[in-house]
């Protein structure tokens, strides 16, 4: 086994430890021994761990996996260390698509998750595709151009979401809470609903590792390698958008995980996407599980939406990367 595969296994082990420990974090603190007892036993501990905390921790890991892998893919595709699903507007696109579905179905849980996910997916595809197409038209985009294009797309789409919320104020509270990005109160149904989309999106990005390596050298160099570039970048946008959309559909907008995770992963396994995509996914999962632990406890008994926490922590990180990449 290569050194880098071993490091990915280390990340996986860290995730397992962090996730298990997180089952004990919350209003009722549980020791490792009580967690293990609760996983197999009966009683109130078992209810807390198995029905409340386990789905939430697993969901945090899945959403982190999706956002981390999508962030690595967007950074390769856009050749930009600051790209992530949030920055380039894919998250806002998902949010708009999902909100449109929620508003038009009037919160009918019956049609439920599939329709919201589909709306989120189409929204993410449209936003990421729009940003990619506009920067491609202008030629190789300087870092700042992409950020401005992403900001423009994000704020227009965000404004439409707010408009929809104002027009449908019976849904207002629910949508606001969801827009802030939160994992509170999610159960096994949400985990099962989101998993297939996240798995397909993540697997797709793993398979596209070689085209991503080629694209990270720039479109002209990638074309010179004899790869079908347009189709490949289309597949990358689709897979990354699917992962983003699933994450947004289950947890709302959680920014900066997709920005930070690839930078952490690159320090561990280098830039080759065959290793970088899985490592970024795992780093994102670890980050989000930890962030959600913080969100549950930092101002207990009140719970912070985890999206607010990642934004508070991620903003300074964004500025550091921006400063370093400016050199």
């Amino acid at each position, binding site marked *: 086994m290569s050194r880098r595969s071993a490091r990915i296994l280390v990340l996986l082990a860290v995730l397992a430890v962090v996730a298990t420990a997180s089952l004990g974090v919350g209003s009722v603190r549980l020791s490792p021994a009580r967690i293990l007892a609760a996983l197999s036993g009966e009683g109130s501990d078992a209810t807390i761990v198995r029905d409340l905390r386990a789905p939430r921790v697993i969901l945090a890991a899945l959403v982190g996996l999706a956002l981390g892998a999508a962030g690595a893919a967007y950074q390769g595709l856009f*050749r*930009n*260390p600051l790209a992530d699903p949030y920055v380039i507007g894919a998250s806002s696109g998902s949010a708009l698509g999902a909100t449109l579905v929620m508003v038009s179905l009037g919160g009918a849980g019956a049609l439920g998750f599939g329709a919201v996910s589909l709306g989120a997916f189409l929204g993410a595809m449209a936003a990421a595709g729009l940003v990619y197409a506009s920067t491609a038209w202008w030629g*190789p985009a300087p870092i700042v151009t992409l950020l401005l294009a992403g900001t423009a797309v994000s704020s227009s789409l965000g404004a439409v979401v707010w408009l929809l919320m104002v027009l449908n104020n019976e849904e207002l509270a629910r949508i606001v809470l969801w827009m802030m990005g939160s994992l509170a109160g999610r159960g096994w149904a949400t985990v099962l609903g989101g998993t297939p989309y996240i798995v397909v999106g993540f697997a797709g990005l793993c*398979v*596209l590792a*070689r*085209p991503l*390596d*080629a694209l*990270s*050298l*720039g479109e*002209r*160099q990638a*074309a*010179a*390698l*004899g*790869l*079908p570039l347009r189709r*490949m970048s289309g597949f990358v946008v689709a897979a990354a958008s699917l992962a983003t959309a699933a994450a947004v559909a289950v947890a709302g907008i959680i920014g900066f995980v997709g920005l930070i995770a690839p930078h952490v992963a*690159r320090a561990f396994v*280098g*830039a*080759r996407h065959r290793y970088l995509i899985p490592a970024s996914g795992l780093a994102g999962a670890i980050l989000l599980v930890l962030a959600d632990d913080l969100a549950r406890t930092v101002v207990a008994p009140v719970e912070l939406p985890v999206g607010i926490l990642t934004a508070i922590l991620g903003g300074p990180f964004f500025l550091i990367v921006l400063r370093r*990449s400016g050199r």
Partner: protein
Amino acid sequence: MSARLRARGLSCGYGRGLTDVLAAVDLDVPAGTVLALLGPNGAGKTTLLRTLARLLPPRGGTVLLDDEDVWDRGRSWTHRRLAVVLPDDPGGARLTVEEVVRLGRAAHRGWWLPMTAEDDEAVARALELTRLMAMRHRTVDALSAGEWQRVTLARSLAQEPRVLLLDEPTAHLDWSFQIEILDLLDRLAREEGLAVVVSLHDLNQASTWADRIALIAEGTLLTEGTPEAVLTPEILARVYNCPVLVDRHPVSGAPMVLPPPRRRNH
């Protein structure tokens, strides 16, 4: 295994522009020869190379590789036989030298098939030929412009092409590396039978290392022939619009182009 690159009645240009950058280009590059493309800035050397490399669809005419139209045979067929070195910088890519060179095998393995021992050999050979073996684990964002130039050449050699196209491969290189690259191209043509097309700015490099020179000017291939036939004071004065002197290399006897003496104020 010999290959021959030909262009017949080729017009090149971009998109739906009204005029061709170049028109009526006929070229013939047999295996084992080096053809230098010369011409003033903006004459269309890069456009012609991109069209020959099947990166830009021709606006008219055909590009033939072993008598087959590259647009009929398709992308991967072409890039298993033809490689192109373009002068782009690595952007922000953090891949290592070896990882970039390995990407040259994508033409053979597609976007998904795993690499084999055959690919490892081709990569090792490309690293040896360009003397990059010692720095194969360095990341490309930390390389000098000249080192990156050698990496892109190594990547194209890993493709194991029969035809090699290069756009100003000696730009940014210091004198000794320029000579090393040109010697390598010469060896690849002579010993491996590659057909090489290389655009150059330095007329004397073309005279020394090319078997034939194609002069691109005035929207077409103005003239093509041996260095002796193309590098004459009359032709060069017309194309570059300034007077030049042409002398002989003291050892090889190849034509050497010199600037006119500095004018002095009296």
